[in-house]
């Protein structure tokens, strides 16, 4: 019997000899993993930043005039909206930007657009707001999820509204032959209805004939050339590169390269997308462009948000700190809005930027040669 007990004892010892070190190793690894996962926090106020709780989720940057116009429109004052749009003049990109503000309001409630159109049935701007609001409403009904998470009810409404929007856009274009905006609005229709490349290029020709370096149009068209819609990574990069290279000085278009890069990274979350050799030069070109854009330009916030994200990804913390400080307490912009929780995505990038910058000893950004 003693023999049996000995055997059992040896067995227990052997078991212990194997399992105890293994469990210790496991526990260590788990601790390390948890430590890595634990959120890094910084005192935002100490750096002069807006704390996470007070970040503005709806806007990319401050624009009090736009807010006031939208509120007035929803209150029924369409004349102010009409004036706001008209004041953009022949700066077609500014007109497109302001149209976006009005369309957001019209998607919520379009009674003011109806009133406007009833009073001035021939007003091309009113027709444009109506048409682009239909496109936006279609997107709203569809939702921003991938096709597999979208119900057939959503698709049905989406397609019905797009079918309604197309003739509306064409009517608006007929009323204002010089304005590229009714054509740019059709880019989203082309996305949703899956236009063939040739049809899309014909549409694009109409737009560039009216304004060859229209920022909003390029951002929209980049979506068409994305792999997730009707293009591919190659087509998307080629489009962005062509637009950025041809952009006149002072245009924010060089940021299109970064936009494309971000689309690529979203598609391949695990791939070494940000390590491609052209990334740093693309960032530098965008920084140069930013230096030439006048302060208060309506596209500046979007450009800075993308720059901040890319600089953070490239660990160029000193320059990223500058951009994060410049964007302030606004989160409502690409790239953050692509995330399920934009505030979280923004705060993560911002915090780690400042931590990295602090670790490096708060270096000053390298000087830019102009």
């Amino acid at each position, binding site marked *: *019997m003693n023999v*049996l*007990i000995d055997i*059992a004892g040896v067995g227990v010892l052997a078991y212990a000899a194997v399992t105890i070190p293994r469990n210790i190793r496991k526990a260590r690894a*788990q601790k390390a993993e*948890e430590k890595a996962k634990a959120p890094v926090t910084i005192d935002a106020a100490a750096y002069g930043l807006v704390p996470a709780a007070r970040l503005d989720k709806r806007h990319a940057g401050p624009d009090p005039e736009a807010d006031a116009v939208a509120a007035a429109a929803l209150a029924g004052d369409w004349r102010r909206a009409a004036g706001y749009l008209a004041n953009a003049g022949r700066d077609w990109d500014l007109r497109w930007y302001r149209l976006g503000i009005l369309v957001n309001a019209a*998607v*919520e*409630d*379009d009674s003011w657009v109806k009133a406007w159109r009833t009073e001035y049935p021939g007003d091309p701007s009113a027709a444009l707001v109506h048409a682009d609001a239909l496109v936006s*409403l279609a997107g*709203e*009904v569809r*939702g921003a999820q991938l096709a597999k998470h979208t*119900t057939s*009810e*959503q698709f*049905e*409404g989406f397609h*019905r*509204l797009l*079918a*309604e929007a197309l003739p509306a856009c064409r009517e608006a274009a007929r009323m204002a032959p010089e304005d590229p905006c009714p054509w740019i609005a059709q880019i989203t229709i082309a996305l949703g209805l899956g236009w063939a490349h040739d049809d899309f290029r014909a549409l694009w020709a109409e737009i560039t004939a009216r304004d060859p370096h229209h920022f909003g149009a390029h951002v929209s068209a980049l979506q068409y050339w994305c792999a997730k819609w009707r293009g591919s990574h190659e087509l998307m990069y080629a489009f962005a590169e062509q637009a950025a290279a041809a952009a006149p000085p002072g245009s924010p278009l060089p940021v299109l390269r970064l936009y494309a890069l971000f689309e690529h990274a979203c598609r391949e979350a695990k791939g070494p997308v940000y390590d491609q050799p052209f990334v740093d030069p693309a960032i530098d070109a965008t920084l140069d462009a930013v230096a030439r854009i006048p302060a208060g330009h309506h596209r500046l916030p979007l450009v800075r948000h993308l720059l901040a994200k890319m600089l953070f990804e490239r660990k160029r913390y000193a320059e990223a700190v500058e951009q994060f400080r410049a964007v302030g307490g606004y989160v409502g912009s690409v790239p953050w809005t692509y995330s399920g929780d934009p505030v979280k995505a923004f705060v993560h990038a911002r915090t780690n930027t400042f931590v990295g910058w602090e670790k490096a000893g708060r270096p000053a950004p390298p000087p830019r040669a102009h």
Partner: protein
Amino acid sequence: MPLRPAGPAASGPAAGRGAPGASLRAALALGLLLGFYLLALALLVAVAALDVVLARGTFTVVTVEGWLGSLAVAWCVLRVVALGRRREEGREGPPGLSLTPREQPELWEHVRRLAERVGTRPPAEIRIVPGAVAMVREDARWLGLVPGERRLFLGVALLLGLPGAELDAVLGHELGHYAHHDTRLGHVVAALRGRLAHTVGALRERAAREEAEERAEFAAKTARRRAEGRPPPLRRGGTRGPDHYLALVFTAYAKLCLRLTEAVSRRQEYAADLVAARIAGPATTAAALRRVPALEAADELYLNQYALMGWDAGLLPPEGQFYGGFALLLVDDTRREQLAALAREPLPEEPGEDRSPYASHPPTADRIRALESLPDDGRTLTLVRRPATALLRAPDRLLAGLEQATLSTEALSKHRVPWAELPWQARRDIAARETEPLLAAMAELTGAPAAPGVIALGHLLDLLDRGLLDELAARLPRSERAARSSGRAAREFARTAFRSALRQLALGAALETGLCRWELCWAGPPVRRTAPAWFTEDLPAALDRAVAEPAVTAPLRTLLLRGGAHGPLDGTGPAPHTLA
């Protein structure tokens, strides 16, 4: 003179009582079955021995723990043995309609004659069951050593679908399972297989359930801790209960047994095939082997697509036709060709290594090859096909009785309608249910109740003309996504829901006026909608116009009027003649 198949089956499936090693293998099976109990016993003994060892040592907490642990293991082992006992209903066999010799003298006489030719005791019960199956069962006791009552289960699809000669082959095969005395111990094999499969299945199920419970508990704990603001608990490798380890032991044993008894089990099938060949001829038997799987597939298709067509609408085919309608499917020329093609298809060849050790039947291809290698007995495939139903007296009553015996009370309470009316009655019912919310919304708005049909559609279009679309649409039930939307998007969701309800109503009206028809089609697909091409093409656009802002109902009215509807749709004439 026992028949000896040549070819690939020659070495294994030697039939007849004289085959050397047959009893040996049967004895092996018996030994393995006993081994099942021995294994359980050995586990118990091992646990007990451990307890004794523990008792010898100094008495500590560990001793008590050990005793408790061993009790748990012993309990599990005992439960496994108990689990091995299959439930009584399993022994009863599938539910069906028992036929007395008084009711069906011809069938009974036929089976008795066949049993005589096979040289075995006839069954004491003949039971008709649903499906395309045939089996014999013997309620043998004492590990199958003492013979018991024999039952013959015969699938109704075989009775309806097999020619008489092939049914003889099937019956011959089943009766052949009893023909040889050396297969008596084959019951032991069957019992062993059944018991092991059941035990392992039950153990695995319990282990899986335990693991799922543990996982659920862990998830609940994590959620609780998260709610309290603490970090989630450390995830440990799932601890598995004794059932898991017992399942491992018994699975290993089961695999061993199945491999060892495979040959016995398969040889039984070959031997039974030889009996069938003696009764019905090798060619007919091979034909039956090919036809049965095809009938099985056809029967499944028939039940799902035809017999249950009106289930959701609370409708079934006429009495006796729930199973009996299969005969209607079988006489359709297209289906007959499909079935013949299915039976002609080359059978899947199973390479030796991939053969499942769990399959009790050899691959059909091998069985057919064995049959084809038999000397031709001069009987060729009878081309004159006397259906098996000829053996039955009053088949309609039998089919009705089978429904009573096998269908659930829910099924039996369904309304019976003739085959020709089943598709459109079912369709009308579904359409009515889908348009119900819309009609309710109309009633709410106008204060007058509305019934589905042309009249209601006319009223609805009048409401649309009055610009009440949004009021109507807002009263329809909303999907989850729609409920989360607001403003114009919510209105668009409501409009989408409204359009699909309107489409149903319009289709219902088209059905009512005879513009569209839903017809039963035995050649498949089961329901054919016949509508004029212009109707199908123009309907979507007409619906779009009707739900646009402002609503334009004229295209939809014209579309339905063109089909011959008068009255409410143009707002003038009398109520239309309704077919429903």
